[in-house]
């Protein structure tokens, strides 16, 4: 697997400048299939060949729904992204296979993409303005330069995980993007503390909740309708690790990850971390913007049976994400000759830290403690590793289980809920020892 550096940002902006209309028509038009056909005509396989860089002699044998490895790894799929699995192209949603998340700090090219709406037309950093209003003493309009000059600039490694990560394992299935494992990342974000900006704005006594708005627009094209606007309680908003970020891994934020300005509210569902951030306002009620109400980003407040119909009133808003871990090396499905192997990955735990990671090679009958690093900073994921010995040749599964500093561990089974959120069941990979 070749490693892609995350230096595609500038190319992307150049591409916008060249011929945005055509691309827009093709992918975002109301009847995209017509235009797509024009593009495709007589060139589908040739295009693929061109992308891969050669002809495909046995293409007739290639199964339906099969992505050539060369293409799965091709950085041209989404400029500046490398190896992501695209779940949806309108709106764009893409996740990263677990073994491509091996870096302690997730490269921009490997950070998942989750969109609810149409990505904004203008992502120009110099003219960008963030408005702070609602229940504040000093409403403010801040440029990115203002943020940099008026507030302390900090850099932290922060986990963002989609609330629906792991939904694909739900049975009965839950609707929505069928994320498997890779709607999670821990990149290095640079920005100013949300808390500092809120303090400068002067939060009024009666404010209890934030409300976030971005520049993305609704898929239906309806003027003024927000695709998503979520918020967090004031207590969470004042946590010093929430950032209003303008840089990702030391460079411009990737356009699909919210350039030029976004919130990063680590440890809570990614939807709290509004992309293309334009406005934060303070409210004296629990924010009721799109995807705050109904059953969006909510789970039943009592245990339910799989498939059970749950009344809307029984749902509550998801706050911290649960303890979880990933095995990022080796890739699942390996056959190895050696009976020794080092496995490793990351573990994270919402608002908490991870205290321990254990691994099993015998379907959970026995466990051994892995080595675990402390986090680079609170809300960074933690690296763990373990040296395994396989007693004889055969099929093994390696399971990993993280436990947080409150003593809460990952379950084996999914706590099923109607909308498919918070699947933190143990990650397992297969290994064949020959």
């Amino acid at each position: 697997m070749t490693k892609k550096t995350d230096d595609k940002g500038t190319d992307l902006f150049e591409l916008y400048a060249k011929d945005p209309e055509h691309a827009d028509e093709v992918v975002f038009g109301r009847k995209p299939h017509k235009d797509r056909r024009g593009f495709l005509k007589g060139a589908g396989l040739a295009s693929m060949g061109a992308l891969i860089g050669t002809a495909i002699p046995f293409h007739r044998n290639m199964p339906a729904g099969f992505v050539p490895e060369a293409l799965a790894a091709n950085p041209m799929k989404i400029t500046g992204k490398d190896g992501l699995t695209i779940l949806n192209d309108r709106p764009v949603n893409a996740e990263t296979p677990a073994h491509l998340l091996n870096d302690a700090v997730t490269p921009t090219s490997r950070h998942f993409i989750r969109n609810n709406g149409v990505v904004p037309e203008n992502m120009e950093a110099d003219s960008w303005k963030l408005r702070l209003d609602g229940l504040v003493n000093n409403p403010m309009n801040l440029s990115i330069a203002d943020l940099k000059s008026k507030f302390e600039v900090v850099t932290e490694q922060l986990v963002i995980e989609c609330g629906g990560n792991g939904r694909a394992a739900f049975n009965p299935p839950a609707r929505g993007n069928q994320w498997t494992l890779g709607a999670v990342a821990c990149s290095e974000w640079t920005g100013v503390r949300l808390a500092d900006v809120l303090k400068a704005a002067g939060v009024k006594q009666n404010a209890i909740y934030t409300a976030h708005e971005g520049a993305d627009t609704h898929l239906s094209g309806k003027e003024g309708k927000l695709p998503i606007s979520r918020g967090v309680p004031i207590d969470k908003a004042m946590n010093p690790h929430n950032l209003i970020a303008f840089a990702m891994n030391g460079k411009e934020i990737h356009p699909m990850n919210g350039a030029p300005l976004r919130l990063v509210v680590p440890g809570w569902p990614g939807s709290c971390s509004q992309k293309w951030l334009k406005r934060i306002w303070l409210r004296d009620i629990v924010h009721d913007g799109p995807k705050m109400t109904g059953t969006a980003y909510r789970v039943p407040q009592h245990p339910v049976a799989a498939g059970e119909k749950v009344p809307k009133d029984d749902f509550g808003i998801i706050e911290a994400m649960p303890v979880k871990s990933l095995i990022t090396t080796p890739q699942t499905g390996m056959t190895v000759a050696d009976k020794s192997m080092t496995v490793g990955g990351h573990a994270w735990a919402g608002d908490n830290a991870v205290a321990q990671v254990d691994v099993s090679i015998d379907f959970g009958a026995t466990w051994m403690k892995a080595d675990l690093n402390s986090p680079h900073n609170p809300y960074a994921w933690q690296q763990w590793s373990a040296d395994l010995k396989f007693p004889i040749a055969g099929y093994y599964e390696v399971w990993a289980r993280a436990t947080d500093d409150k003593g809460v561990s990952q379950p084996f089974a999914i706590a099923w809920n109607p909308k498919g959120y918070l699947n933190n069941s143990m990650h397992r990979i297969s290994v064949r020892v020959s």
Partner: protein
Amino acid sequence: MKPVIRWLVLPAVAWMWISVPHPAAAEPAGTIIQLAAETNAADEEDEYQGLPPGAGRDETLGICGACHSMKLVTQQGLSRQSWTDVLEYMVDEQEMPELEPEDHKLITDYLTKFYGPDRRARGMAK
């Protein structure tokens, strides 16, 4: 929204092609020209973004495809009740027009038949 999608064009094309079922054939085709000749059938299928033929396909593509690609549909595996809930949600919260009863039935039938709980493309082991 103009600037964003430029870099998705090639990938979209390639992906669409991949999702088209291909007749299995023993003899390998070795040249780009031969590859290109095969794309017309794929091309036709591609108009439906992977939706299989059946009563309600045009309506499903027309109504659902107005706002999002069929990839959002083809990932799912839902019961009739869940599909009905999805359509209700789309009307209540996502600006989908209210459907005539016959269109509603046609689309629900189609989705339930092809994207029922046992049909979803992206389940994972657990």
